[in-house]
């Protein structure tokens, strides 16, 4: 264990929150404090750094329990606002995935498809308090004789509604370009031919896992801001790859760690869970997520002071591969370059396009800061930190 000059515990910080003495700043605000005073003084002065991100996160969805009917039904197939939900669970449990399109969506038959309504939109409508139309079909059993149920349903009337996103909050992601000769419509947005634009999808220096690159404080049980309510990190996300190459500052230079997160949908808000339609790709859900990082020592202060010019995204050609999909990595670009509006690729100026909302990411970091300052949100020590090796 390294010898730190500052040593704080979760309990001490939570005690300060209770007493209203806690010092909280955002991951943008900590940068200047560390620059001016150094990491040791910053770690002494500041207790918590709040982060935030807001962007489409396709691997999201919700478990919904619509309550037993009379006569009872064991759902075999289900649709909410005509969007299919998975019913291969116990009687009235459903899982609704964010990217599931409406059952009668023309998909990409008329290319590029518009994907106007899907699972993400249903989730957004539910948290907005809107009534949705549920259709359930079943084969009928001795214990569950009912074969069909149709009902209007609101979030309030559900027995349980739990957002459970298997993979959110990527630690770094590709910056996408298209070197082919036709426009591509991808989950990274529209990519004009001959590197007409470079799309990226990370909040940079505000992004949660950029500020704790080795997951010293983030792990199973970490309490977070999720979709406008309180949620938890419940496991490493799917495709969690902490072994990806790292820069000198320890931050991965490629998509690395991911989080599986969970929270009560009933406490969330449509401002931070927005159903989206990605032209030619499909439906998704924009998720607002913020993680508080306790400055337990000067190492955490140094990590949280990371700036956009020290964070690098891999520049990936999404048009170069015959088989389609993401192909060759062309190099790396810093988030400072990406946020400047143009990058240089092969001597050509390429305009950059963010898919992630920095404005709302900042709003989330400030909201979480306010929650902690006013004693509404306490920190949790992870039961187990995320794995740092594959």
């Amino acid at each position, binding site marked *: 264990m390294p010898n730190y000059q500052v040593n704080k515990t979760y309990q001490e910080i939570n005690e300060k929150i209770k007493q209203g003495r806690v010092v909280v700043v955002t991951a943008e605000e900590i940068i200047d404090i560390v620059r001016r005073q150094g990491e040791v003084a910053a770690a002494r002065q500041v207790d918590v750094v709040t982060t935030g991100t*807001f*962007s*489409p996160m396709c691997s999201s969805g919700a478990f919904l329990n619509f309550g037993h009917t009379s006569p009872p039904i064991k759902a075999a197939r289900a649709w909410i606002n005509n969007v299919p939900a998975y019913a291969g669970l116990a009687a009235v449990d459903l899982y609704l995935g964010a990217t599931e399109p409406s059952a009668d969506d023309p998909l990409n038959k008329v290319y*590029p498809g*518009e994907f*106007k309504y899907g699972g993400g939109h249903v989730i957004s409508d539910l948290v907005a308090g809107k009534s949705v139309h549920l259709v359930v079909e079943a084969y009928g059993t001795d214990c569950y004789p009912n074969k069909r149920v149709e009902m209007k349903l609101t979030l309030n009337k559900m027995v349980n509604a739990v957002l459970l996103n298997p993979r959110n909050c990527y630690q770094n992601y590709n910056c996408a370009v298209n070197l082919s000769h036709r426009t591509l419509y991808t989950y990274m*947005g*529209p*990519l*004009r031919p001959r590197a007409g*634009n470079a*799309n990226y999808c990370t909040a940079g220096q505000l992004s949660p896992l950029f500020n704790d690159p080795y997951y010293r404080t983030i792990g199973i049980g970490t309490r977070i801001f999720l979709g406008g309510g309180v949620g938890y990190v419940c496991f490493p996300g799917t495709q969690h790859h902490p072994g990806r190459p790292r820069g000198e500052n320890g931050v991965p230079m490629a998509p690395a760690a991911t989080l599986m997160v969970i929270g009560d949908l009933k406490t969330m808000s449509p401002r931070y869970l*927005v159903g*989206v*339609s*990605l*032209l030619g790709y499909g439906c*998704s859900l*924009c998720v607002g997520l913020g993680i508080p990082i306790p400055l337990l020592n000067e190492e955490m202060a140094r990590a949280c002071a990371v700036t956009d010019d020290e964070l690098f995204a891999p520049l990936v050609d999404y048009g170069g591969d015959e088989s389609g999909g993401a192909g060759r990595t062309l190099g790396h670009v810093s988030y400072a370059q990406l*946020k*400047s*509006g143009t990058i240089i690729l092969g001597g050509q100026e390429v*305009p950059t*396009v*963010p*898919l*992630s*909302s*920095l*404005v*709302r990411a900042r709003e989330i970091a400030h909201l979480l800061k306010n929650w902690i300052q006013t004693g509404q949100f306490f920190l949790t020590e992870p039961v187990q930190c995320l794995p740092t090796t594959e």
Partner: protein
Amino acid sequence: MAATYGQRLTEENMHAEMLILRFPKKIVDQPIIYRLVKDYDLEFNLLKANITPQREGIIVMELKGHPKNFRQGLRYLKDAGVQVKRMAGEVRRNEERCYQCGTCTALCPTGALWIKRPEMEVCFEAEKCSACELCVSICPARAMEVRLNRQAV
């Protein structure tokens, strides 16, 4: 004719607007756009045109030039019997729905949608919008509501 010729037109002293022109059937056979160019030194960029001989016609276009010429050209159009509506204000962003990502800036051809740095706020200037509608289906939140001015059409 008092068109202001010969003056250097920079982007700053240039006036440009997106217009919807409605031609009654008695004037659809007249070379009205030609006169705008010839007599008033105005540039035009046609976006939509639907003109049938002996019937009404509609043109959506951007008109650009010296502000004085622009005003006189507009007066000429009205005197000739063309109904002129400004497109600006007809193109809207649903501010409630827009979450300020910036995806739209990938395709916006006129710079009406742009990002204010370093804040990274996504701005929309209706006056610069050519109503090409590329942003409508590209916006993930479907916040862009671009409609023709129904009164004019």
